[in-house]
Every structure is written in C-alpha cells, then in structure tokens.
C-alpha cells in the first residue's frame, strides 16, 4: 500500500495538543464534559485568526493513533454557521502509517469581531478506513473573545411581567402578552422572592413590573455572579414560548473545560406541564394582553429544569441556549 501523499510532509506529532483544542471521538456525548481523548485517532485544529474581516487559513491535523494503516481519509472542516469555508472537504490519497499524521489546510472567511463575549466553535471531522477502526473522529476548537455578562440580570432583554394597570410594556411571547404581576404575587412570586426548585435556591426577578426581567435566550454567555461554585446540576427557572423551547446550555469551568446539557421548558400556557422533562413551579390565572388583563380561565406557568454539572469543577460561566423561545428568570447551582 502506498503511503499518503500530503500537502505537508507526513510527520509524527505528539498526541497532546495545546490550547482549547478538544479531541472527541465522534459523536460527542451531550452533557458530558469534553475531555481530550488519550488514544485513537486525533483530529486537531490550529488556532484561527479571528481578526476579521479577512480570509484566514486553518490547518487540521489528523493523527493515526490506531494500529492499522489509515486509508481513504477525508477531512472536513466547518466554522460557525454561515461562515464560508474553502473547500469543505479534502481527500488524502494513499494511506497513513500508525503514529503518522497528515495536515489539511482550509480557508475560512472570518467576519469582523463582534463586541461582547463571543465563542466561535470550529469543527473538523475525519472519516477513514483502518487506523483505530473507528471510521470517524472529530476535533473541535473553541475560540473566545470578550467577557461574559456578570449576572443573569445583566443580560435581561425581555419584559415578561407587567402590572394589570399598565400592560403595554409586556411582550413575553412576541405577541405583546405578559404575566400579570398581581397574579404572580398571589402565588408567591413577588420581586426578589425566593424560589426553591430542584434543590436550588432561585430568586424571582427583583425588578419593577413593566421592566426587563428575563432573558430570551440567544446564546448569551453569563457568569453566575455570587452564585457560582460547584454542584451537581445547574437549575434554570423559566418558561417557554411555542412548543419548541429547548436547547443546549454549555457550562464552562474555571479549568477551561466545558460540558453541555440539553433542557427545555413547556409553553407558558398550553403544553403539558411536564413537557421536555420540566418541573412545574407555579401557575397563575390569566395573562396581561396589550388591552389589559384577560384569558382568566387559562393557566400561565413557570417551570424549572436543569443540566448536569461536573461536581469536581467550579463553574465560571454558562452559555445559554441559542433559542429565544427559552425564557430564563434565574439560574442557580444545586447539590
């Protein structure tokens, strides 16, 4: 079998890869902290120059960590959604000896840096025959810039609660509707009230009615403020819009590692209260519409849900789901 012929000469590389590169035998497991694999096929991505707008060059290195020669190797590379990559796939002729590696270069269109905290995730996937027999392996690289929001309240971007005498500021659901402050108070949800759910002590938004009081989740990076630390799970207090209020939250730990978990909330009114595995916290009667309080015979609810944490690690910040149907009033660590 002829050896692989590559742009860069074949060369052995150390199994260890510096920086934020993560070796993950595909498919990655949700909710599990991403750790470097110690053996098998390695896929690593070089640092990406994010000083855009520009076309940057990225090198993907595939190392054959298996006992067999690696054949039919193809390497694909992708950046964040919508970023153009040239080409999206490269093929490697020939084969790769055990312990050897091959480099494939790609060009990617990098936009101008956005202000605030941003995580750009890049993914390279190798498909092959032979090698470690796995058939496919994936490497990811996450590049960060900026600083996370100091607390959830600093990320408030939506008005969910209004007074029944002044409802027009509310727009929880995109249709101008909102929770009634009076009806929430009737079930104990007053500004700053403590809410115990799923083992966590949460706090109802401590802001006046008619002001921004929750986060419509769109990938914001948020630190836990004074509520950081260690625990077994991260609990979210919130509710959903539409029946598709689900997504992944990624927890970043102080040691630089991360883990991802999926959760969801039922729609605030019409879904079964256990939809997406959520737990009902409180229900209120009716809602505030643009023309005042109404729909008194319908329940509007708040729920709790959680994602698992690595109890040995300290949480630094959380990247909320990229789904604005998920509305979050608070989050806290539970044992």
């Amino acid at each position, binding site marked *: 079998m002829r050896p692989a*012929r590559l742009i860069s000469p074949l060369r052995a590389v150390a199994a260890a890869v510096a920086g934020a590169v993560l070796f993950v035998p595909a498919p990655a497991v949700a909710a599990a902290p991403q750790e470097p694999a110690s053996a098998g096929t390695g896929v690593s991505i070089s640092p990406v120059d994010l000083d855009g707008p520009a076309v940057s060059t990225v090198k993907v290195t595939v190392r054959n960590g298996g006992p067999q020669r690696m054949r039919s190797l193809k390497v694909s590379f992708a950046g*964040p959604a*919508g970023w153009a990559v040239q080409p*999206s796939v490269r093929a490697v002729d020939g084969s790769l000896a055990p312990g050897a590696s091959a480099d494939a270069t790609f060009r990617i269109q990098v*936009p101008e840096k956005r202000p605030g905290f941003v995580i750009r995730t890049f993914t390279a996937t190798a498909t092959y025959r032979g090698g470690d027999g796995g058939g496919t392996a994936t490497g990811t690289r996450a590049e960060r810039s900026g600083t996370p929001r100091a607390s959830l309240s600093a990320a408030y971007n939506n008005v969910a609660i209004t007074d029944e005498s002044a409802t027009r500021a509310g727009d929880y659901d995109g249709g101008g509707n909102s929770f009634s402050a009076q009806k929430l108070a009737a079930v104990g949800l007053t500004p700053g009230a403590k809410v115990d759910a799923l083992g966590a002590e949460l706090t109802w938004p401590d802001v006046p009615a008619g002001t921004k009081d929750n986060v419509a989740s769109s*990938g914001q990076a948020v630190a836990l403020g004074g509520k950081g630390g260690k625990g077994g799970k991260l609990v979210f207090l919130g509710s959903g819009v539409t029946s598709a209020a689900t997504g992944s939250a990624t927890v970043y730990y102080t040691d630089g590692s991360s883990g991802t978990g999926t959760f969801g909330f039922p729609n605030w009114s019409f879904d079964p209260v256990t939809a997406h595995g959520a737990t009902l916290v409180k229900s209120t009667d009716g809602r505030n519409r643009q023309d005042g309080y109404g729909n008194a015979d319908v329940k509007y609810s708040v729920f709790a849900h959680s994602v698992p944490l690595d109890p040995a690690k300290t949480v630094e910040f959380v990247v909320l789901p*990229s789904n604005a*149907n998920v509305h979050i009033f608070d989050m806290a660590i539970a044992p």
Partner: protein
Amino acid sequence: MPEIPAVSRRLLLGGTLATGALAAGIGSAGSASAAPAAASPAASGVSDASAAAPGRRPGQKSMINVPFEVHRTVRVAVIALGNRGSGMTPGWSAVPGCVVTAVCDIRADRAKRTADQLVSKGKPRPAEYGGSADSYADMLERDDIDLVYIATPWEFHYEQGKAALLAGKHVVVELPVATELRELWDLVDTSERTRKNLMLSENCSYGRNELAMLKMAHEGLFGDVTNGHGGYLHDLRALLFSDTYYTDSWRRLWHTRSTASFYAMHGLAPVAAAMDINRGDRMTVLRATATEPKGLADYRERFVPKSHPSWRETYINGDLVTCLIDTARGRVIRAEHDVSSPRPYSRINSLAGSRGIFEDYAGVSSAGGGRIYVEPDHSGHSWRAFDAYRKEFDHWLWKKIGDDAANNGGHGGMDYVLQWRTVQLMRAGLVPDIDVYDSAAWCAPVPLSVMSLADKGRPVAIPDFTRGGWVNLRSGLDSRTTEMPPVS
C-alpha cells in the same frame, strides 16, 4: 495556502465546483454542503450557448486580487455631463486627494458649465472636451488622467470603457458596463491585457443597509444563506417621457428595442456580494419572465400630448422583468426590474438563510424601513426593527465618512461613499472592492434575460467571467478599516 488555480474549460462550462488538486495527495473532495454538483448545462436542459468562455491570449492573466498602483493624487476625467455625470463630478472633486482634470460631453456647453461650477467651488479648472461623439477619444489621449468615469447612455458604455482601458486608464462605468455578452467578455479581456481595473459604478453596493446586510451575512446571522432578492423598482414614467431629463430620450428608446432586464444590478449586486459571488460562489443559470409592456403606453395615453414624438414608438420591454438566478452553491437570487409601473421606489434588498431573514423596504416611511427576524435572537413569528442591527453592523466606511457623504453626494450618500472608496483604493494601492469580473457578472442578466425571454423563459447558462477563479475565497466589499492616505 495556495489558491486553487483556474480550472478547465470543461468545468467552466459545467458549473461544477472546481476543485483542482492543490498538491500531491490532498485535494478538495467537494461535498453536498459546499456545492451541489451541477450537470452540464446541455444535459440539464439549460441553454449553454451563452456559457462559452473565450481563452486567454498568451501572457494574459487574471485581474483577481490585482491592486491599483499607488497614486499620490487621483486624476479623474468625466465622460458625459448629463444628469448623472454632472451630478457626480462635484463628488469626485470633493474627495481628498482627487482632482478632476478633464471633462467631456458631446454638447460642449455642458463641459464648460461643469468646468465653471468646479472653479466656483475653488477647484482647478478641468480641460474641456466636446462638440462631437469622438471628443472623448481626444480626451483619453491626455497623460494626466488616472481614472475615467463614464456616465453616457448605456449604448456607449462598452465602447468608451474599452477605449479608456486601452488608453491606460482605470475606469468606473455607470450601469451597465455593456449590454451584450461579447462586449462583457471583451471588457474582461481588455482589463486583463491592459492590467487596468474596470469597475461598475454600483453605488448601491455601498448603501448603508446593503453593507450592513453583507456584514451580517458574513457574521452568520442568517445561517447558511440560501436566497436573496433585489432589483430596481422605480417609477420612471414621468422622467422617461420628459423631453429634458434623459438626453434625446435615450432611456425611453431602449424600451422600444430591447426586452432586457436593463438595470436590475442595483438590487442584484448587494445580494451577490452577500453571497460572495466570484469569491467562493458564482451565478450559473438564469431564467427570465416578463409581464406585458403596458405601463408606458398607458401613461402616454393619459398624460402625453398626441403631438409628442413618443407616439410613434412601440414599447416591447415588459413592465416587470424577473430573473431567477441559480448559483453553484445552490442558492437562488431573484432580480427584478420595473421602471414603467406606478409604485413607490424599492430595491427589495432581502437576504435569507437557515437562521433568519432581512427585508429592506418593508415599511411605509420614505426611508424604507428594514425588518429582520434571526434565530436565536428572535422568536414568536414577529418581525423586529432593523435599526439595532444596522448600528452594530454598520460598515466602517459609513462610520468614517457618513457625514461627508450626506453633504457631498446624492442617493443618500452612496455616491460619495463609492467615490471616496474608489479614490482611497487607488491612492493606497489596494485591491478594488468591485472588479471587472463582478461588473461583468452583475451586468450579464441584461443580455441573458433577452436570450431567456426569446426562448420562452428557458434557463440559460451564465458565463464564468473569472474562468474558474471564483472558487477562491477573497475579500470584497466587507473590507478592513483603512485610512485615506494624507494629502500633502
């Protein structure tokens, strides 16, 4: 990493993603996400009579990524001083480091009037040319001209643009740069042979919303961009029948002799930029439809005296000419042209993808009013205002010279931004934002729409004016912030 070299004629004609091997061993394998493999035009029912790419002459090379040579001062000559030319000339003279050295119009009095106006603004008096259709050729013989700006009626653009290139000048040509495929190819070839840049004067490519839309697309806010819509929808009926606005009624007469989508590039070009056409994607196939030509005749019937010369004319250009354009990466562009129907102005200017959509001209205000809906920022099936996004994604050109643009240029400042940027590119020795390949591609729907309409809307292949160079990612209008060189 080396760029992928130009590809074979077979690939040019086939419209497949050209992925020539880069080096021994590793090559791009292509993928479904990168480029749906296109069958050859003939095999897919697409007329490929339009697709043939002429070969380059020995020594002739691409102009992709070829920068301007550095000019300490950019010396501009203007051909034609009607509405457009006379309106743009003060803008050129206002850009730091730019001077108008010569002006020309077949009507010599216009040249004198423009020269007088420049002097009245404290500018040097330009040389004046005029009096005949060939006056511009005399002007091109001057050696104190770096850039020629052409604003004549459409039928003269090709001839004058080519002449300017052959005279060793860079050229900015108003829309369209040419109206026939062979002319477009000839301009590409002439640019490549003379090593001079030819640029479509597409001011809308520098529109504030358009540039923000481009930057948002590159950020990925729309996800994978799948479709875009643009055009030129402008009720020109009164102007077309005016005896003074368009010299010799040249623009109305086009409606008597061509079925083309004359001017859709105002909306097409910004969408093409957002899709990185010629910079990783390319337009491959065009199909056109046209409504009956009712608007001009109806207007004439109601508002134009029977003694007017227009009553001897028959209009054949459809009121709404729509071009549907496929790209190599599977996107679809809709480009419309309608200047003969009663309607408020719009360039449509819409872009959509797997994660959201932007629509310009969606409000009822005179400013248009963009609206947007992008996940994950938005949910609930309701539009949001564009304002915050335009602020965040405002192009550096507008942040830097927006105030100057408002004071010096028409069309909301777009004209001046184009002029300022063109001069900056030349003075700093940078690669043009819009090159001859963009210019040719954006103007190709003019002849291609005629071909498609003549064949009952059959798809026609769009030539690859880059001759395979389109596969390489490269920068364009989404540029990095740079300074205008100081004026000594």
